[in-house]
């Protein structure tokens, strides 16, 4: 275990401040082990955190990162191992113990009470009091403003948390930790819910914290971010520490390999497309959103068999409504949707499914599965009424089991069993179940909306391969994604959606990051003129 400290010598370089991290680590964990029924979540994990550094903890979903942090924060009790704070061994029975030792945690899912004010949320548990009975909100409010000013964490202490944007809610979480005088801060996947701009803001805050002597454990599976912000990276895989890396000498590729345990292809390999006849035809489609505003404005779109059409665009430009209209989840106001020349406009989703459409929905937990149903039942959600899964009015349990066993194996779904409720699986494995179900039917048209959102590198690679395989089998693929990298690496043709319409359609060899980025902002650069949708030309500079 000691060879992991070989990098000790150079980690001080980027940690600012006079007290370079030599001497006793502020937090040291050795041999920490946690077993859950059937799983060894943490297997003798050791790590050291020095004063004023950012330690990256990298690992795929289910690698045991959160379990480790929950033990350090006292939410779980370790089965074995030792935690030392400033060199002293401590037992942490609950969050109170962790708080009193200066450990603060920002959870992946914010632990805020939406209906309470920022002040109430921050002081909850360590309330400022006036006398023995009454709360002293004024004092708490003043301390929050002090902390906010000191660390550049702008927030209105009187606002209700539910009215705040996600980025500000995260600031409230950080203030909560600082309010309790935490000098060890654990950030559990803090960027998962943030926009790129908000993430940059967070990194700025983290740098300020480091300057003031706070030490941070930064948990993530996003390689770029880890390389950007961390002084040192430890990689976890299947509950074990598998290595340590220096961000200055590492690349995304080397980290990904360490994290997944094998060579990972970040760039998808695919052969040129051989597009055939039109499968999906969308003509002058107009769709309104939940508030009744026009979200899709007379949009035209064609996808051919054997090609992947990627729709790029900043979220909220009508992509969601477009997909919902095509898949029958939302009735369009006007216009036509044709699949293989057959009019399916406004038809129920079952008709569209039976026309040979597969749909990987944007919000998988809401539209893609029934959380409390077993994996096996989720595998037949659209086909349960057909042979072989159903005979007259009875289900054929054996056929359903066999189907599930087969798909679980083929798509490498990590589940304790086919009878496990899908809600208990990790996000990546839930997505794999959906992909398995959709891709195992003979498809003419595949609609994949944000297919890899929130997934780890290994799962992303796998799902990308499957999408390309569907294309090569002759399906038309409509890919909608907010990740520009995903669009550029998978698509054969890129359509950019802006303000409810497709502003331009480019072949992949003409679609570079810069051009597509400009188009996403609604600007048509001169060299992309020829690809712009005709009507958008005269307003593109408006």
């Amino acid at each position: 275990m000691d060879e992991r400290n070989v990098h000790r010598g150079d980690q001080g370089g980027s940690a600012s401040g006079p007290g370079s991290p030599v001497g006793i680590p502020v937090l040291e964990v050795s041999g920490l082990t946690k077993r859950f029924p059937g799983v060894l979540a943490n297997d003798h994990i050791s790590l050291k955190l020095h004063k004023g550094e950012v330690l990256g903890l990298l690992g795929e979903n289910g690698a045991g990162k959160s379990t480790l942090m929950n033990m350090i924060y006292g939410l779980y009790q370790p089965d074995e191992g030792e935690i030392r704070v400033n060199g002293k061994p401590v037992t942490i029975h609950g969050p109170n113990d962790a708080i009193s030792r200066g450990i603060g945690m920002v959870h992946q899912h914010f632990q805020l009470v939406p209906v309470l004010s920022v002040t109430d949320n921050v002081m909850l548990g360590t309330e400022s009091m006036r006398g023995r009975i009454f709360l002293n909100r004024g004092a708490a409010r003043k301390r929050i403003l002090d902390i906010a000013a000191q660390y550049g964490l702008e927030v209105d202490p009187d606002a209700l948390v539910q009215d705040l944007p996600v980025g500000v809610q995260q600031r409230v979480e950080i203030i909560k930790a600082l309010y309790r005088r935490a000098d060890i801060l654990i950030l559990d996947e803090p960027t998962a819910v943030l926009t790129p701009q908000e993430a940059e803001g967070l990194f700025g805050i983290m740098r300020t914290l480091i300057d003031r002597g706070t030490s941070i454990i930064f948990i993530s599976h996003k390689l770029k971010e880890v390389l950007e912000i961390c002084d040192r990276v430890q990689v976890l895989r299947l509950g074990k520490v598998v290595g340590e890396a220096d961000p200055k000498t590492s690349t995304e590729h080397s980290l990904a390999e360490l994290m997944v345990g094998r060579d990972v292809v970040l760039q998808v390999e695919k052969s040129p497309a051989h597009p055939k006849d039109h499968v999906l035809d969308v003509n002058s489609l107009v769709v309104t959103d939940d508030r009744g505003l026009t979200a899709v404005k007379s949009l035209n779109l064609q996808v051919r068999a054997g090609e992947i059409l990627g729709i790029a665009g900043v979220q909220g430009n009508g992509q969601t409504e477009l997909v919902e209209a095509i898949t029958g989840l939302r009735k369009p106001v006007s216009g036509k949707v044709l699949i293989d020349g057959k009019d399916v406009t406004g038809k129920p989703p079952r008709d569209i499914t039976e026309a040979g459409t597969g749909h990987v929905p944007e919000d998988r937990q809401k539209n893609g599965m029934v959380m409390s149903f077993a994996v096996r039942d989720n595998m037949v959600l659209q086909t349960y009424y057909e042979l072989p899964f159903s005979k007259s009015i009875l289900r054929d349990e054996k056929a359903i089991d066999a189907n599930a066993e087969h798909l679980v194996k083929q798509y490498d779904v990590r589940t304790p069993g086919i009878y496990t409720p899908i809600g208990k699986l990790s996000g990546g494995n839930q997505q794999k179940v959906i992909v398995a179900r959709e891709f195992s039917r003979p498809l003419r048209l595949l609609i994949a909306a944000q297919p890899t959102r929130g997934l780890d590198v290994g799962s992303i690679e796998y799902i990308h391969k499957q999408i390309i395989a569907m294309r090569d089998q002759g399906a038309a693929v409509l890919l909608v994604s907010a990740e520009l990298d995903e669009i550029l690496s998978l698509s054969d043709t890129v359509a950019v959606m802006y303000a409810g319409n497709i502003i331009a359609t480019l072949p992949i060899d003409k679609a570079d990051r810069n051009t597509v980025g400009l188009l996403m902002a609604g600007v048509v650069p001169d060299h992309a003129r020829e690809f712009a949708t005709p009507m958008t030309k005269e307003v593109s500079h408006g």
Partner: protein
Amino acid sequence: MAVAAPTINEAAPAGRKRIKITRTLVFSILFVAFGVWLILGAINTLTPETSTLLTFGAGTPDLPVPTQIITLISGIYYAAAGVICLIMAQQRLRTILLLIGGVLLIPVIIIIAAADASTNVTTLLSVSLRLSTPIVLGAMAGIWCERSGVSNIAIEGMMLTGACNGFVVFTILSPNLATGEAQLVGVIISILSGGLMSLLLAWLSITYKTNQIVAGTVINIMAVGITSFIRREVLFSSEAGRGTLAPWPIPVLSDMPVVGEIFFSGRPIFYMMFVLVIVTHVMLYFTRWGLRTRAVGENPRAADTLGVNVIRNRWINVFIGGMIAGLAGAWFSLETTGSFDDNMTSGRGFIALAAMIFGKWTPFGAFAGGILFGFSDAMGQRFQFLGVPIPPQFLQMVPYVITIIVLAGLVGRAQAPKADGVPYDKEGK
């Protein structure tokens, strides 16, 4: 094709205007209909000579009211308000008009019901407030439980147990103790029995994570059985109709006209209602315990990660809620009737839940809701005195109809505490 699309930078929504059936629309139409009905009724069945005499008790002048004109004016108000709501889009104006309409309904009904007769408004209000005591107390019991995240539909059972046990102990003790002392012990026993029943709820639903609706139902059914049994075994032989808690008129204040009779001539548990509403409000919003309780009821995990003991918080809140429900039980047997009958709470515990929801889980809101239901009871009784030519069952429905209008038309969707009814699992997701 289809190049004639709207320009891309167009910001204004191009959505078509569609008529949506909103609450305001429904209630506007109802208002118009009701207004027209009042106007027609006033013209056809009432004469200009018809008048209603409103009295306010001794020492105050009586107030004769011309029934037809009042009915006409209010009819015109409802019709006009309905039309204005249909035409004008201003949401604030609509809300104000509908709110006035809701409040106006009560005096209008009293005046019409007592046409050609007299009615004592002070007594009506004082009876209303008295009858709302168990409902308001039950609603407070509900707030303590539900704000911490435990649904309590067992308030009825807790009240009934409190009513029975308190009275039984009072009966047993009264030969040996002064009546006042025996009553005091009785009330304390009521409170404790309510608390004891709530501990059963806490044990089932917090510790064993049983479905809280089922646990509450079990307690309600059990309470009916146990109290009937106790009544037959212990009370059957003893004579009925013992004394009730003595009134506590507050010096000076109780002599004031109107207000004195309504607020300051009550009995102990009646006063406790006001005290507990204020205590509950202060507790919830201004104390450490209240802040933690609200956090536990909304997001127990968040509270847990900050070192708040969720399970302990819930146990204590449920116990306090149960004791308040027990006190409400004492109102039936010890304060009001001086006897105990099977199932004498007759659904007030459930009405209390409705009052709590009406008040959106806030003490003062629930207090208002409780008074509304108390008023419904009082009006039902009053209509029978007045001999209104409509079956009394229908007249008794009126306040509930008002409640529906207020709840659906004005209050809107009530938002329960997020974690209400959800057992907390520390290591679960």
